[in-house]
């Protein structure tokens, strides 16, 4: 984990309040899907965590959704601007040895799964993705997923694109779900909580988002309760957890 300054190569709006940033990272060591960087922002005292959404050489992609003044500031950074980052933080995903793998992305939560899909496809592991959002214009990165996934299934809560219904309802009906050896999910907490209860037999790993203090395990600000009733640090033990090991 290092602190570095990284120039913005591209800032593109993907949908309402959704932005994609490409940054050039000098001296980048290997990064794993699930890992994140802590971004210094102007409007808030603490950094904001963004997961790695994709990689091309020394360039990393991050996708953010504006939720407050901090992310709004980050959404407006211009090409050439230098950002202050710390990372990579957190434990990455251990890439499974065999597939097929199923990826379940809800809203902006699809972003970190894209990088996982790319790493899986590089390793020759088949993976299918369900990309879900509330409505059509909030669907992100669908074309990119198509480049690296065997199949990409789109669903929207309102039916404006792809299957109609909540991601968890759609997942239950898909034959890819039963075939998958392991599932990875990232999305809003209600989606992850619902996934816990649909009786999937395979392991499901959840990429968690949390309010973080430091992102480095120093402050214990980003707690998630485990099955053992203890709190675990999303930043250090996570952000990827076996869904059965955590309480949502």
């Amino acid at each position: 984990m290092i602190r570095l300054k990284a120039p913005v190569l591209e800032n593109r709006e993907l949908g309402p309040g959704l932005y994609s940033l490409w940054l050039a990272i000098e001296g980048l060591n290997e990064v794993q899907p699930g890992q994140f960087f802590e971004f210094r922002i102007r409007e808030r005292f603490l950094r904001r965590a963004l997961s790695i959404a994709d990689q091309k050489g020394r360039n990393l992609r991050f996708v953010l959704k504006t939720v407050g003044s901090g992310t709004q500031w980050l959404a407006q950074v211009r090409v050439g601007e230098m950002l202050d980052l710390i990372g990579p933080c957190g434990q990455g995903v251990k890439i499974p040895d065999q597939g097929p793998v199923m990826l379940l992305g809800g809203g902006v939560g699809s972003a970190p799964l894209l990088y996982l899909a790319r790493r899986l496809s590089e390793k020759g592991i088949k993976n299918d993705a369900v990309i879900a959002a509330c409505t059509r214009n909030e669907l992100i990165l669908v074309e990119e997923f198509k480049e690296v996934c065997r199949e990409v299934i789109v669903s929207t809560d309102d039916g404006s694109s792809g299957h109609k219904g909540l991601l968890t309802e759609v997942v239950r009906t898909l034959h890819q779900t039963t075939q998958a050896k392991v599932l990875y999910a990232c999305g809003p907490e209600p989606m992850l909580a619902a996934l816990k209860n649909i009786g999937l037999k395979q392991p499901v790993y959840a990429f968690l988002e949390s309010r973080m203090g430091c992102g480095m395990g120093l402050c214990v600000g980003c707690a998630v309760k485990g099955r053992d009733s203890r709190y675990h640090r999303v930043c250090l033990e996570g952000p990827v957890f076996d869904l059965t090991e955590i309480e949502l």
Partner: protein
Amino acid sequence: MNVKLGKTTFRNPLVLASGTFGYGLTFPEVIEKVGALVTKGITVEERIGNPPPRIWDSAETVVNSVGLENVGLQRFQTEILPMIPTSTPVYVNLAGVDLGDFKSILQPLGQDQRIAGFELNLSCPNVKEGGAALGQSSRKVSEVTALARSLTVKPIWVKLTSNFCDVREISKAAADAGADAVVLVNTLNALVIDVEKRKPFLGAGSGGLSGPAVKPHVLYIVREISRIIDIPVIASGGVVSGLDVFEYLLAGARLVQLGSINLVDPGAALRILEELKDLFRREGVNSPTEIIGRLEDR
């Protein structure tokens, strides 16, 4: 940059504050450069801490409600102490509900060679029992400090609160009961509201405020208290720069803790130390001792 506090000499006045650097097991390149490190608060039994969310921030504040999550005395002794840094004096922050708790911790740890000293946490705003409830009463501050004094010859710092109490009285109580220094101050009581839910935002219902916004308040307290007690004052409140440290020294602090800024940048202490050295050069100051408490009247 040396500073003396009692019989102890610190390599510089910077101290990593409790709760912002874990148990000192990471970032050794930072720890070896500061004057001292204070561990996360230890309690007799393990504590799982408060429900999330535990942290909120604005441009100049952090509000936390971690609630003294820690491994407890036994695991601290078996798992943490053997790994504790030796490159810098480590002060162990102790928290408890009553005298019995402090006795239970200080009896086994009081003479441990790996520990430089203790910081009694009589000021945590995020626990229902003990913490600030002890620190708001000068009688209880006196009792806990005197008990600690009887159980260790190592330096005892007493970390106090300015919430709902007279800081002058509790500081005097700590000094009279044998403390080596008072640490001013722990986080300030704070409430963050989630308007949509009509509820407090933090899982614990309230939290403790820190960050640059508290600095003027804490500077004032440090100046007032350092004038009326005859033991050293250690400042803790919103330091983000070498200039802030310089101000606290002028106001009367002998050591200065860095807290919230460590969460933004774990290497902040190194930058702040360089800034302080630059400032000393520019101001023609040779040693921190030359400026401690030298704030002039208007």
